């Protein structure tokens, strides 16, 4: 799975995710990537999120929308909401990671696996490419 979230100069957030699905899948299995709210979500009022991992768990938790909702209803930061989402994922046995951006340009890259291919850059000139945890 690959994904991207971005905040433009007009303050608009976008999230996108694309995947080949799960190796050896059958019966037309679909994971979380194409399901809005599970693997992908964006709302200018809160954040943009793209997920990767074991899709069935992300679908059951509605992870991407859950992060946005926690920010809106609990008035917590993207960082805090993302940590809670990964905790929920871990508790039910799911594995994977998320990337996110809030309306102020704050970045999160969270996972409960050994690693995640990930990178970011911003208008401050900050940029980083990471693979391992």
């Amino acid at each position, binding site marked *: 799975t*690959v994904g*991207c979230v971005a905040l433009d100069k007009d303050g608009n957030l976008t999230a996108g995710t*694309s*995947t080949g699905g*799960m190796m050896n899948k*059958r019966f037309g299995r679909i994971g979380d990537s194409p399901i809005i709210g599970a693997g992908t979500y964006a709302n200018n009022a809160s954040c943009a999120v793209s997920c990767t991992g074991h899709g069935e768990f992300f679908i059951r938790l509605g992870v991407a929308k859950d992060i946005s909702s926690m920010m809106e209803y609990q008035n917590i930061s993207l960082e805090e909401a993302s940590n809670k989402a990964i905790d929920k994922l871990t508790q039910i046995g799911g594995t*994977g990671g998320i990337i996110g951006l809030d309306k102020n340009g704050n970045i999160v*890259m969270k996972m409960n696996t050994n690693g995640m291919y990930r*990178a970011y850059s911003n*208008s401050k000139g900050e940029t980083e490419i990471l693979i391992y945890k």
Partner: protein
Amino acid sequence: SDYAIVIHGGAGTILRKDFTPEKETLYKKVLQEALQIGDSILRNGGSSLDAVEKTIRILENSPLFNAGKGAVFTNSGKNELDASIMWGKDLNAGAVAGVDDIKNPISAARKVMENSEHVMLSGHGASEFAKTQGLEIVDQSYFFTQNRWDHLQEILKKEKEMTPEDRHG
């Protein structure tokens, strides 16, 4: 920040011992290329929608990642791709699922969002829609990569159950 962009290429069991320096450089090069495309669009005042689509297309076109070219194989030896996109400005969204001949599914997802009254299209119908939108349609063989194929054969041969270690996003 005035603008920002974050990308991922999947999560899973990524161990340093499995990565030669050359392999690590290869992955970082593609991530860097994808990031630069998106950063450039945003720096020049482009929309986050354009940045996300163009960035993901780079990753889809790389055989290193499980999306587009480089997608894993289904049990029947096919590639079935899914993608979605959502714009935070108006909560508009689009997605395609189970498509097997659209070169860049993320672009198809955007077309669904912008040019259809639906959110998600699947399978053959999604491909038919993509054709009407002028998107590039490719033969199934475009998505073939030897290492993914070998991995599927290994799994089928051993008839083993999938474990968390087999899942890479």
